[in-house]
């Protein structure tokens, strides 16, 4: 109790998804604990970690759910998409099939996640330059086409990792503020419905309180 971690302005739930072995768990451990383990075990079901960042003067606590990549676990893992305001969709730049499967993961999100979830495409293992088979341009074009944020990272050498999380959390924060403002201005008008749809952390944004209760 009383850790600095407990004080935050916003609590955002974010999921890490993507094929097995693309490095989701290591992205999480690099971001939350600055650790990397070349020989980490596969994730079974879901795992969880948190970290707070500061953006635009606000402390945002990220509650990150790391999911198992295998298809058999989708029934379990997709339950964790509920309430998520962000998703890092990870592929491995040295394995083309993991990039090809990104479309299937997008469909998973469409089927199970909130409609306004912020999605960032993450090309991990950028340190494997000599093994690269997915070019930055190809991925960037795909991201643009599907309206996704995009970044390349290496959980191994840490490049891009903090930026990826920082960017997606900031974007969620801005989007939320924008929607909140729209909701405020339209609160008296007839189009209130649009404003109410912001489930983006609606139950999570109690300022400076320790979050308790359902996640």
């Amino acid at each position, binding site marked *: 109790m009383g850790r600095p971690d407990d004080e935050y302005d916003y609590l955002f739930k974010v999921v890490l998804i993507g094929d097995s072995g693309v490095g989701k768990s290591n992205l999480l451990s690099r971001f939350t604990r600055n650790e990397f383990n070349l*020989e980490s075990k596969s994730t*079974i*079901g879901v795992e*969880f970690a948190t970290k707070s960042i500061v953006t635009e003067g606000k402390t945002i606590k990220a*509650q990150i759910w790391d999911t198992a990549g295998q298809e*058999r676990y989708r029934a379990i893992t997709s339950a964790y998409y509920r309430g998520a305001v962000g998703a890092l969709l990870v592929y491995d730049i040295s394995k083309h099939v993991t990039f090809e499967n990104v479309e299937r993961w997008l469909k998973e999100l469409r089927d199970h996640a909130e409609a306004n979830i912020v999605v960032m495409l993450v090309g991990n293992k950028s340190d494997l330059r000599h093994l690269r088979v997915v070019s930055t341009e190809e991925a960037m074009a795909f991201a643009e086409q599907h309206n996704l944020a995009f970044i390349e990272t290496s959980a191994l050498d840490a490049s891009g990792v903090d930026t990826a999380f920082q960017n997606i959390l900031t974007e969620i924060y801005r989007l939320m503020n924008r929607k909140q403002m729209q909701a405020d201005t339209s609160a008296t008008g007839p189009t209130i419905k649009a404003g109410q749809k912001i489930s983006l952390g609606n139950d999570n944004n109690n300022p400076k309180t320790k*979050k308790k209760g359902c996640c």
Partner: protein
Amino acid sequence: MRRRRTCEAFDEELGRDIIDLDNLARMAWNGVPPERRRTVWMLLVGYLPANASRREATVRRKRGEFEEALRLHFHVSPGARSQRDQGTLRQILVDVPRTCPGIPLFAQEGIQNLMIRVLYVWSIRHPASGYVQGMNDLLAIFIMVFAAAAEADLDTVDHATFGRGGFATFDSDLDDDLAPARPAEVGLPPSRRGPRGQPHSHVEGLDASRFSQQTLDEIAADTYWCLSKVLDSIHDHYTHTQPGLRRATTQVEGLLRRVDSDLFKHLMEECMPILQITFRWINCLLTRELPLRVIMRLWDTCLAETSGFEKFFPYVCAAFLCHFSETLRHLQAEDLHLFLQDLPTKDWTDDDVETLLSEAYILSTLFQDAPSHLALKEAQASLAAMIDPLARTG
């Protein structure tokens, strides 16, 4: 607590022409000495027949069948694999190198190749579930036990001083004369000479590079069949939406509600679904929660129980959860998750596991009739529902 049996006690049973499997299971329930574990597990899962005279032929045939399965399914040109099978192979290739990281045995190429084959053939032959992540952890347990025994075989032959029981390598390249302490065939009474009850303390430092290809092939076939027996008993843990795993979780939840309602209430208040807790426990049969050296002790009992991983295992999980009750009841949502993800079990010994198993046993004797009572109530309720509208219309 019941006393662990010595090698001698096991040798007496293992030496019979026809082993009394019920008696063997009763003994194994309280723990199997590491030196006899391979033979006892092979008998308990039903890979080795109880009848000594049929044992050698059975194992020969089974090993031959696995070789044939490899030829049919594994040693084929890449183009001959369906897209689904390619996906399966890819998944296995991703997971095998991530099995038991830190234990040198699993970093060795011979062992990794063996695992890939076993898991792949199993998947092809069980399309309803196919390979599911975590099965590699289960296979690893069998590999640890069988590789330790294979290494002991080598030492027996090398030094001819280590008496040991149960199981000998078939078709060994080595001359039998070099191995006077080695039983001539599977399941014969082992030599009573040599050190007794020596634990395989080096089990995590096994060196597979000492094994011939033939030994590796034998380990592959033997672990394949034993893993198959275990997975067959819990197949719907791994089929689409994993109904068996959910059923086991419901059972754990029911048990928790009755034996530790404070913990149950606390978990509900913290919005911690029991499935979130038990998913990995049941999926990987606690291999991710406990150190390998004590997992084997846990498995002695689960293999000794009839359908142990299906029927007895939920009691083990309930007892395991209650074990941490005091701590869990003082943790809130996030800290609960973090604690459960990384339970403080790294110093657990066989004694801790045996306490856990005793608690699970008590739960099972108290509540094992509960499901049938529930089923009866459900039947009565549905009967009432059927009669009720009839009564009204009538």
